[in-house]
């Protein structure tokens, strides 16, 4: 059984700031990491492999040459093979073109895939679109926000526990299928030092634009329906007035007075 995990390299977001003048990310001193949700997706693939050693895990990423280090991390964590989809012609791709390119790269490199696992979203763009779009492009059933999974139906189906706003659902679908994963109860793995050393002997294949059956005008910025015009931090709000040292009655009266001055309270006869 072949499982493909599509992954993205992202900046370690807790450190990233936006330059207010240029609207670009300040990347100096910011490290790049494997998107945590992609790591959770890979973790589920590795768990399945532990139960069924015949499973072969391939990770695929579209990105610049530096994305190789995120793929290396997937090899350390248990992937068997990694594919970097990298070409200048891919630059500027929106979510749709990224999904199209990744889907085609998967068709080319792992034509007999049974499952595609993805993280629910990347922590930099937060769009949560690429996974579902890949499922549409590849005509696959998809289950999103998974937190646990098992292969069922004599290796022909997957059963997924997925998060909803009110709890969990258990869904099952036939293979091939695409599943996106949330964090759930997942705690990131720690590879052994032996894993880190041996992963450097595993292959990372390179896929270029010419290797794909997609016309150049459908790739990158020229093929994109959408474009990021500007990135900017949200406007900082001024702190509101802080009341202290007043009794509860005084506090309530002061708040009502303040609210009345900005006219947000519904006026009723006999009210304050």
């Amino acid at each position: 059984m072949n499982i493909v995990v599509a992954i993205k390299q992202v900046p370690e977001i807790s450190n990233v700031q936006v330059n207010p003048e240029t609207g670009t990310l300040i990347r100096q001193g910011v490290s790049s990491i494997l998107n945590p949700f992609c790591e959770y997706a890979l973790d589920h693939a590795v768990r399945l492999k532990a139960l069924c050693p015949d499973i072969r895990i391939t990770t695929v990423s579209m990105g610049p040459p530096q994305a190789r280090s995120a793929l290396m991390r997937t090899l350390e964590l248990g992937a068997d093979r990694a594919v970097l989809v990298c070409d200048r012609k891919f630059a500027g791709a929106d979510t749709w073109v990224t999904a199209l390119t990744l889907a085609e790269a998967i068709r080319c490199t792992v034509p007999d895939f049974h499952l595609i696992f993805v993280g629910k979203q990347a922590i930099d763009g937060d769009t949560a679109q690429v996974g579902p779009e890949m499922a549409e492009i590849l005509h696959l059933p998809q289950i999103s926000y998974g937190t646990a999974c098992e292969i069922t139906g004599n290796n022909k189906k997957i059963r997924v526990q997925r998060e909803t706003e009110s709890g969990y659902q258990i869904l099952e679908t036939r293979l091939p299928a695409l599943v996106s994963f949330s964090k759930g109860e997942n705690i990131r793995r720690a590879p052994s030092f032996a894993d880190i050393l041996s992963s450097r002997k595993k292959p990372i294949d390179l896929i270029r634009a010419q290797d794909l059956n997609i016309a150049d005008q459908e790739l990158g910025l020229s093929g994109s329906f959408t474009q990021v015009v500007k990135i900017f931090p949200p406007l900082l709000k001024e702190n509101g007035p802080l009341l202290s040292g007043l009794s509860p009655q005084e506090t309530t009266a002061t708040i009502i007075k303040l609210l009345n001055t900005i006219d947000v309270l519904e006026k009723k006869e006999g009210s304050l």
Partner: protein
Amino acid sequence: MHEITSTPMDEIPIETIHQINGFDAIKENYPDYLTDESKLTMGAFDFLFFPQNESELATIVNEMIRKKICMTVAGARTGLVGGCVPLCGALISLENLNKTLDLSYSESADEWRIKAQAGVLLSDLATMITGKCFSDLEPDLSPETQKKLIHFKNDPGRYFYPPDPTEMSASLGGTVATNASGARTYHYGPTRDWIRGIRVLTMAGEFLEIPRGKYFSSPGGQFTVYDSKGGHTPIRIPEYTLPRTKNTAGFYAAPHMDLIDLFIGSEGALGIITTIEIALLPWEPKCSVIQFVSSDDKALHLVKSLRSDKRIQLDFMEFYSQNALNLLRKMQAEDSRMVGMPPIPESAGAALFFELGFDPEMDTPDYRALEETINTAGASLTDSWAGYETREISRFKHFRHLLPEKVTQVISERKKIHPEIHRLSSDLAVPDEHLDDIWNLYKERLNLANIEWVGFGHVGNNHFHISSMPRDMEELARGIKIYTEFAEKAVSYGGTVSAEHGIGKIKAKYLKTMYSKDHIAQMKSIKTALDPDLLLNPGNIFTQETCTK
């Protein structure tokens, strides 16, 4: 040169300096200033000052000297032995002396240096160095500073300040006054090794400028300090030999010693360090490894093998005993997310945590020497956790610090039933050849006494933190007796009673375990020479339970 002269600073009107008067006001509005991380509290004190600059500090200190009022100096109050807990008089917090003053490159030493005030926090310093961004320097750029800053920013290398005393919210001044060390002392040495200069306010009310490598003790073991008013103070260096371990107990002493080393680690007994020049080292990528082994004995065997193989260069070696791993397993069962690591392997009977150079970009890294050594010690690199990304290195570090935090939590729970109970923690270090002896002693005595305990800490330096969690007052009393025995035994092995926490007020009673009466008298004579009225940091190092002023 063994003679040095201090220089005065113009005072300003004392009434212009912000101060909090009266213990009641301090207690009500500044309760954090009554203690440090040791949670020790002492008597009432009358004044609290937050000097904004050296001039304010000099004014306060001279006023206290004239009025013969005792002064205790505080940095970030992260110490573990009550060094900044006032006994009486005034508390002077240096937290607002927190400016970065200069950046320079020493051609002769081929190193970058930063000069900063004592109140700068290590965490802020690390952020500035990593990001190469010095906001204090930048608003007031002289052409010369601007040139140095551009030079530093354009240098493609990354740099770091090696001392890492675990508590990064510590102040730079505090770490110099205590010669702080930590896990990385194994490879980089203690704070002392990275200090290139200090400025000290003496109890003559004047400043000494002490660069490293300028003032050395005379052949007779003496320094002479002159002040601007014509006073001169001879200081005789103690005759003892320091232990062959890392050590923070007692004043530094060595033949032909550098004056700077007398002040570093003197726990504020001799003067107030106001400015420090530190050296930086080029940063190299690292990999953190937690290597699991089958037992405590196997772990110690591995420590000795790793230490003796010169092909293997580790930044630090930290220990998790079997009972420490069991405590962590219990935490994982209670709340695995809080621990943040995968389940500890069932087969693990102990672990070593170490860090080594690792370039993730290398396709064929060669770690055969490490693999051989680990295999020879009956372990395997497959039974390890490893990580080299910044977030992974932080995650491993967090895992290491969970242990002391858990011990604190257990003790807090037990305090609800026995308010007087406290943890017992060892800070002893011994020379390499006594690693097994001291470990076996700890294990045997504490297990025999049926006291709940965990062992962890800086095993690379033969420096365990043995933390006991007494369940009742009777166990506490037995534990105290056993820990006194541990201290005596460590000293008999040629070790120290305080490898990194310092003596402060809490461990002052242990000083006589390590030093003879004559040697303590020699230390006291330095103290009385530089602080004749015993006004500065009373109760630190030398036992003093009540104020004599």
